[in-house]
């Protein structure tokens, strides 16, 4: 498969290849069978692999995740879909009290190699409950790996890696980017899924983004370049664990950082990014790490979502607030405090 591929297609191909490679992989959830999922990410899988490998279950998210726990206990590698972000909430207890803890509870005797796919985020004009960004809930929960791809290649590679992972993975799919295209050759292996990557190099500011906001961040960086500001864009990819090395190295070099996400800012994931980069890079920072996030309101109705979502303009505004007039010459590198 070479040529133009969308994120949705890349994810579909990853599932197909995973099903073909390993008989212990099963895919199920709501409408993932004949319909192929409401976003068609599971399109054709039932036809190709049969009802035993890709199928529709009763409509109950706790039941879906809970049965997947049992399958994984047995040794299967279930990949389940939550149809939309807010519809993963009924499964919250199963995820937090079991998926995240079973390995630890049993001293590693029961691993849960399972993947919970969640299309997340807004920007598609959807009505209430169809545009939440739930990453902070999952990232705060030890025992889960939480990853989110931003490009078709990463979608393919990270999903394959998630399915192969011995740990349970919450796999967050930026739904507004399902149709994002890339020239790619599949199968492909990109960076390991627990690594951040630099998507664009720059010297003046580090812009940290993930999932749906990576594209927006790159646009902002391009716009800033025209105004003479050189922005380095870091795609975090793995929200938990966090790749300190990549992010902190960039911030130490640029001395300024902005983190961007769609979720409400308050107690959001960006707070962790800002807090830990400040801990690790304090004396390199010319200004506080700023956050450009969704407003601290419930996700708005479609006509207002543009006001909620971080935009290129808001990111550029944040750059302007990075206290450029205050640049000091770098102090001799002090010992940094541990994370």
């Amino acid at each position, binding site marked *: 498969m070479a040529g133009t591929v969308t994120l949705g297609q890349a994810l579909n191909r990853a599932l197909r290849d995973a099903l073909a490679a390993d008989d212990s992989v099963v895919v199920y959830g709501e409408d993932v069978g004949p319909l192929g999922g409401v976003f068609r990410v599971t399109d054709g899988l039932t036809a190709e692999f049969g009802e035993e490998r890709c199928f529709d279950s009763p409509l109950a998210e706790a039941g879906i995740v809970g049965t997947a726990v049992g399958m994984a206990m047995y040794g299967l590698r279930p990949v389940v879909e939550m149809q939309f972000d807010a519809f993963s909430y009924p499964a919250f207890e199963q995820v937090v009290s079991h998926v995240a803890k079973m390995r630890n509870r049993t001293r590693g005797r029961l691993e849960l190699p399972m993947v919970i796919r969640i299309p997340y985020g807004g920007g598609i004009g959807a009505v209430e*409950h169809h545009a939440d960004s739930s990453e902070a809930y999952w990232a705060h929960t030890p025992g889960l790996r939480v990853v989110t791809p931003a490009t078709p290649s990463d979608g393919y590679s990270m999903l394959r890696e998630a399915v192969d992972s011995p740990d349970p993975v919450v796999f967050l799919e930026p739904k507004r980017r399902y149709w994002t295209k890339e020239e790619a050759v599949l199968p492909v292996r990109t960076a390991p899924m627990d690594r951040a990557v630099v998507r664009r190099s720059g010297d003046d500011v580090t812009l940290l983004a993930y999932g749906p906001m990576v594209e927006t961040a790159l646009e902002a960086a391009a716009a800033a370049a025209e105004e003479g500001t050189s922005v380095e864009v870091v795609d975090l990819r793995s929200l938990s664990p966090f790749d300190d090395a990549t992010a902190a190295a960039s911030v130490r070099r640029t001395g300024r950082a902005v983190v961007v996400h769609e979720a409400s800012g308050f107690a959001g994931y960006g707070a962790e990014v800002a807090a830990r980069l400040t801990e690790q890079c304090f004396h390199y920072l010319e200004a506080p790490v700023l956050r450009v996030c969704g407003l601290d309101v419930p996700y708005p109705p479609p006509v207002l979502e543009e006001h909620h979502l971080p935009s290129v303009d808001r990111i550029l505004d944040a750059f302007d607030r990075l206290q450029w007039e205050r640049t000091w010459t770098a102090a001799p590198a002090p010992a940094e405090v541990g994370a």
Partner: protein
Amino acid sequence: MKRSDDARGSAPPLPSVEPVGLVDPTGRRTEGAAYDTPEPGALLALLRGMVIGRRFDRQASALARQGRLAVYPSSRGQEACQVGGALALADRDWLFPTYRDCVSLVARGVDPVEVLTLLRGDWHSGYDPRRHRCAPQCTPLATSAPHAVGLAWAARRAGEDAAALVMMGDGATSEGDAHEAFNFAAVWKAPVVFLVQNNQWAISVPVDKQSAAPTLAHKAVGYGMAGVHIDGNDAAAVYAAVSQALEAARDGGGPTLIEARTYRLDPHTNSDDPGRYRDDAERARWEERDPLARLEALLRAEGALDDAAMDGFEKEAEITAAAVRERYSGDDETAPEDLFAHVYHSIPAQLERQRRDLLAEIGEG
């Protein structure tokens, strides 16, 4: 053993595996029906509601096709449930509709434009829930069912003679919240009626993948509540069954679970593609069981409806549709600052700052 099995109720009769109806698909009264057929006035009101409802639904589907609604889940084919359920309610009762139950809201008297606020994407809900005693339409499946139980319990506590009608789909019955609501209602003997519109499909998933039980109404047995299985394309039956259940609920008889067997003729929403999962022949068979034609046939055969009356309903329906179209050419009235106004009773400092920033950004600060 003071609180043993003896203290709990004995099993109510099992629901019928064949749905119970009052009017057969050809428009004739069925023999030995389980309910009295409603009065002609009530039947005319049902027909009127269905004619208007269907026209509204068609209009909304058209708006969705034109991209003037964010999404629209049609209830074409389910009008008997939509209207029969709503008209069975007294003013003092409460309705708990889902995303699919727009026609129900219209039948209840909610302004059709306000009904569409959610689906147009202007706000999450457009009507005043207190004025109409209609909860906002609920999207997370089965989650409004416990709300209805709590509200009904509170109404009874306040000495109000009110009950609540909860709408849900066949798929929604699989959710844990449905179970918890059924159970709380039965244990509390809350004045609630659960109307499950079994339209055979939960998006692409057929009901035999949701449940292995003979009917969904059989679930009632496990909660110690009454369960009935009715023909959901028979408006008279829906009206009668819901009326009787509401009455029992108000009289302290506890909740009832009604499964109404019907069919979603249109796609799940305008963005669905049913060709991927169901036969057109199936849909065609259900088109023949049209709830409107059936009631119209009965009323005409019994001399309770003439062309003039039918024309009148259709005219009303056109007026409703035209009003929706026209009022939709106006601007929407949602303002950016509405984002902040309703999150809390008063705006906390942190939100006030965000509000000011936004207004400044869009040049209104």
